[in-house]
């Protein structure tokens, strides 16, 4: 069993580093941690970075999950190889570029590039946002899946994820007390479907709605409220078609032992209880 502690970072390739930085700072509100030769590191909380733009093709994406220690990393590599995944052992240089002690990389069954990391760096200085979006931290990702049932088994049987709720056959999965860290989304090919940052209050969600609308950033869903996690949300488009989400008030699963996933129907009200409709963003089960 691979014990994921939390999601650590997202790496996104981009052909236009300048636009990515402009968006990340003036719209999203992240803090530039470091401008390297071919990478831009961005902070959203007390970690050294949680989002990294790398020069390259926008389909070059990776999600990092933190695991306990290097022993666990070795065991994880063995487990994955036994299951037929090709495992890449990160070099010291590659680890340094991820600001982690050690890592391995592999593809999940849909082909999403996943990295398991040990000892990701924290920062001594507190996070200081570039604009007052109220961000409290990078929190979860939506992950494309070509076969949600198969991928649910991977995340829950090979890894330690637990299903918190399902909408249709789409699982929202947690790896700690937070309602979900990985939300699978049915899609024809692999990819990160959205990147979530938590904000302080529903005020921040609504403020950003007006702020981003005024700057002509396409709002693709919301402001709304998920009946599953209880979170108030706003989804909007970033560079290279990536969808970013602000949300607040994600429930915690109070009793790990007795929680049973609830089943929601695959319908608009299962995604938003306020009545917002996705515009230019596919719902997780659209085929």
């Amino acid at each position, binding site marked *: 069993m691979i014990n994921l502690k939390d999601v650590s970072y997202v790496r996104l390739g981009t052909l236009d580093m300048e636009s990515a930085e402009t968006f990340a700072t003036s719209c999203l509100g992240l803090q530039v941690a470091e401008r390297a030769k071919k990478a831009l590191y961005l902070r959203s909380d007390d970690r050294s970075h949680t989002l990294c733009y790398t020069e390259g093709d926008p389909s070059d994406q990776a999600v990092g999950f933190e695991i306990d220690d290097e022993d666990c990393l070795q065991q994880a590599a063995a487990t994955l190889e036994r299951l037929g995944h090709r495992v890449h052992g990160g070099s010291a240089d590659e680890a340094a570029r991820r600001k982690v002690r050690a890592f391995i990389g592999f593809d999940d069954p849909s082909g999403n590039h996943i990295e398991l990391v040990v000892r990701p760096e924290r920062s001594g200085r507190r996070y200081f946002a570039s604009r007052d979006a109220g961000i409290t931290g990078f929190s979860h990702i939506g992950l494309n899946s070509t076969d949600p049932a198969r991928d649910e088994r991977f995340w829950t049987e090979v890894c330690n994820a637990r299903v918190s709720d399902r909408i249709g056959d789409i699982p929202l999965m947690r790896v700690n007390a937070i309602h979900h860290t990985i939300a699978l989304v049915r899609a024809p090919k692999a990819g990160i479907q959205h990147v979530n940052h938590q904000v302080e209050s*529903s*005020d921040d969600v*609504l*403020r950003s*709605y*007006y*702020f981003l609308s*005024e700057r002509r950033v396409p709002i693709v869903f919301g*402001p*709304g*409220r998920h009946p599953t996690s209880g979170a*108030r949300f706003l989804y909007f488009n970033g560079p290279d078609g990536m969808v970013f989400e602000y949300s607040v008030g994600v429930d915690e699963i109070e009793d790990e032992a007795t929680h049973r996933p609830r089943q929601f129907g695959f319908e608009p009200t299962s995604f938003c*209880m*306020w*009545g*917002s409709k996705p515009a230019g963003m596919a719902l997780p089960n659209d085929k």
Partner: protein
Amino acid sequence: MNPDHHPLVVSVCYIRIAASELHASARFAADIFGLQRVAEKNGEIAFRSDNRFRTLSISNGSSNGSGAGSSIGIEAWDEVALVEIEKRLTKGGFTVSRATTDDCRLRYVQAALLARDGSGNSIDLVARPTQSGRRYFPSRDAGITELHGVGIRSTDMARDLQFWKELGAEVSDWVGDITYLRIDGLHHRIALYPAKRHGLLYAAFEVETLDNIMQNGYFMQERQIKIVQGPGREPCSKQIFLHVEGPDGIIFSYVSGMKEIGPVRRPARQFPLAPQSLCDWGSEAKDVPELSAGVN
């Protein structure tokens, strides 16, 4: 009883409006806005929003705010308070008269003074407004819990402020000259807006939560009902709001979460007349000069 021991007025207890299209307006109030239609008397259709018998009446007529069918009902502590109010308003030089039995019956109250503020807005000071034994049961789940307050257009801010001070209201805050008036523990129940004409600017109904504000926003969007402003949050009172265009341009508002000030007095605060003083989130009221902070 010594009137100094209790407030003279206790609540905004009803709104009476005259609308050019009575039945369309009644449909808006019930089917769209979500109030409960309860009665019709002398051409006035009555609606409930809480455990009072009615908090909104609509009649046929022009909605200039001073016609026979338009008034704002303010509940006085009791009949003794009405005597004191009559004395104070008369001394202050305001038009005030005792309501007839018919006037009272039409207003579902036991006694009333019919007064005019400095701008000419009809304000009814009433005693013993009728409550209902049955609980409020609206036609749709808009989340309404009570008539919360009113926004009033003023053409004479100094006189209107004096009018409300005679009734014991206190200023909580100013935005430019917009004046938020407190009559109970909440930040305001009455807000005066400098305007070119008098009349009711908005009737505000409290809803349970932000969820209802947002749900009602999408409900209006889907039905192509004009949203005048919001969803937004008033920085002074912390109240979240959605201003919806109602009959004859009168704004019907859903509001929630106003800050309590409590019994301790504090000086009124002055905020600049700017959009961010009227909405913390960034919503704007482009078509309503009173709500647009001088931008339009």
